[in-house]
């Protein structure tokens, strides 16, 4: 099972012929992901180490049965790529691209409402179900298969925590890097809901950070709907208020949105919150024992 990506995942890489697209497309394939096609306008008929390239997603889907898109397209064209993938009704769209204007993403979000595709990202590391399929840039070698579902707003922080889990012999069902942009696709709640319904997931790790209220809303969802245990981590307890932290998702807005408030909301929902990545791994290990 796992969530979002699994053995049935067939990936088309939008922007496959670009530098990052080629690097990560081949890396995902080397991991074992079924990468069936690439899309680059004007380059149909070529291939990237055997992966055929098409002009449009529609043609790629018709020829290869792709059901998942992985987007490495510059920010000015990335939302067009998302619309294109959505119009082909791909079940999953993973948009790695960083730097997409908020207005463009807000329009995408409005467009996706009520459509069958799930978007992950943008500005995210992607999704991996260890041992099965890796769609994105999460280093596959730090992961191992197991019962922990993980969802995170942050990229490298996710790697850190996954790494610490794996070092302790605790494997993961699926790791979801939802990305830190203010307007994004799947969030904590969508991921938690899928983990709750996934028989292979026994426990969920939620990695949040300061800014916004995603963690507070996730806490409410956990209190109402989750039966599986959740371990949390919030980055930014000591971050200076109001200073930009590298992406817009990490601006502290007034009193709510602080790491303290988020940790308290999660704890009130029964989530054990670790203060360091190491403590998170220890809490998970303890809960699984």
């Amino acid at each position, binding site marked *: 099972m796992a969530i979002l990506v699994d053995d049935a995942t067939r990936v088309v890489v939008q922007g496959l012929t670009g530098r990052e697209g080629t690097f990560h497309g081949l890396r995902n394939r080397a991991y074992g992901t079924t990468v069936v096609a690439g899309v680059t306008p004007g380059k149909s008929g070529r291939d990237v180490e055997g992966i055929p390239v098409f002009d449009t997603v529609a043609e790629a889907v018709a020829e290869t049965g792709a059901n998942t898109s992985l987007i490495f397209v510059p920010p000015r064209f990335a939302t067009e790529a998302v619309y294109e993938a959505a119009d082909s009704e791909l079940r999953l769209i993973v948009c790695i691209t960083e730097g997409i204007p908020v207005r463009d993403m807000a329009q995408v979000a409005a467009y996706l409402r009520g459509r069958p595709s799930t978007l992950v990202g943008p500005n995210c590391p992607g999704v991996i179900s260890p041992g099965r399929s890796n769609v994105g840039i999460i280093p596959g070698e730090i992961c191992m298969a197991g019962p922990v579902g993980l969802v*995170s707003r942050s990229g490298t922080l996710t790697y*850190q925590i996954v790494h610490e889990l794996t070092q302790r012999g605790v494997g993961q069902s699926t790791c979801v890097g939802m990305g830190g942009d203010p307007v994004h696709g799947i969030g904590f709640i969508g991921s938690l809901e899928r983990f709750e319904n996934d028989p292979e997931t026994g426990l969920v790790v939620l990695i949040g950070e300061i800014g916004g209220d995603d963690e507070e809303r996730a806490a409410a969802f956990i209190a109402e709907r989750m039966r599986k245990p959740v371990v949390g981590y919030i*980055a930014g307890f000591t971050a200076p208020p109001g200073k930009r932290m590298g992406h817009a998702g990490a601006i502290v807005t007034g009193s709510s949105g602080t790491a303290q408030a988020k940790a308290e909301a999660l704890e009130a929902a029964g989530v054990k919150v670790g203060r360091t990545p190491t403590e998170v791994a220890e809490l998970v290990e303890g809960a699984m024992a």
Partner: protein
Amino acid sequence: MDLYEHQGKELFAKHDIPLVEGSVAESAEQARGIAERLGGKVAVKVQVQIGGRGKGGGIALVGSPQEAEDAAARMLSEGFQGTKVTRVLVERLVDISEQFYAAISLDRSAGAYLAIVSSEGGMDIEQVARERPEALRRVHIDPLLGLHAYQVRYAVGHLSSEAREGAAAVLAKMHEVLATNDATLVEINPLALLTDGRVVALDSKVTIDDNALWRHPELEGLRATFPIDPVEARARDAGLQYVKLDGEVGIIGNGAGLVMATLDVVELAGAKPANFLDVGGGASAEVMAVSLEVILSDPSVRSVLVNIFGGITRCDVVAQGILEALERVVPTVQIVVRLDGTNAPEGRAILAEANHPRIVPAETMLEAAQRAAELARAA
């Protein structure tokens, strides 16, 4: 990118949002001249990106050109709450009948813009929201359709009847400002009904989406007018996110979340960060070298912590960058380096071979933070 009050008002003027007459002065003499032109009774306002100017002495209401000159001289020489002031805005004093609040900002959880109008303005709006929520009306704006007339009608429907028409026009134009300039925030506090019946913007807060600045080269140019710390300027020119803090450990990491977690772990280890710098994804050796130079140029740094988890970023490249930096600057502090993820063994081997006296390798993030904290305390 946050605009200064006067820059926001210049955008407002382009979209015909009513303003009070005024101009920017960069010297006390200029301020006097503007005050003379406006008839003497003026407000002199520091141009800074900090709230609370009214209470903090950042706004002077004066009765003559001489007083305007004096106020401007004081502001330009003393600064405001520790921030340098290079410009003041001099505006004609007006008779205010009522004060409101109006804003359009991104609602992250809805993935859409939200207009907020409060029948009480000119004060801390978060307090109003907490204590008198009925004073606020909110409407979500569809990103494809824009702001409908009925939404404007609703948003201003709780204002006094004299103010409604003027406030409605301003709100519609605020949305124009937002949409035309890729703003993520357009805020007016206070939006004032004057005794002459006009509804005018007495302040402006405008934030432009950095990711959309390529669509607005005219706004990108405004950034050049911002006063900025030279160290921050160097980092920014290299495309790096650098933030100055008040502790003693310099921190370099890759990715905002990991950097924030590193700050937290350093504090738990009993030290305080002096600054931090996010090298982002896929950092080159050159980027690492510049980053280390920037961090080390801060005299309050007693130790440095480099915490890299390689994903796109390759740890061997990071290690090379660290060594390059050490050829260009001679550090007086120890640099704790923790490398993990992509090509970490290669990176660690490069550092081990170099065997530089200032480099202290660490196995884990926790160990690295503890080591950096100890070194800072010992230095």
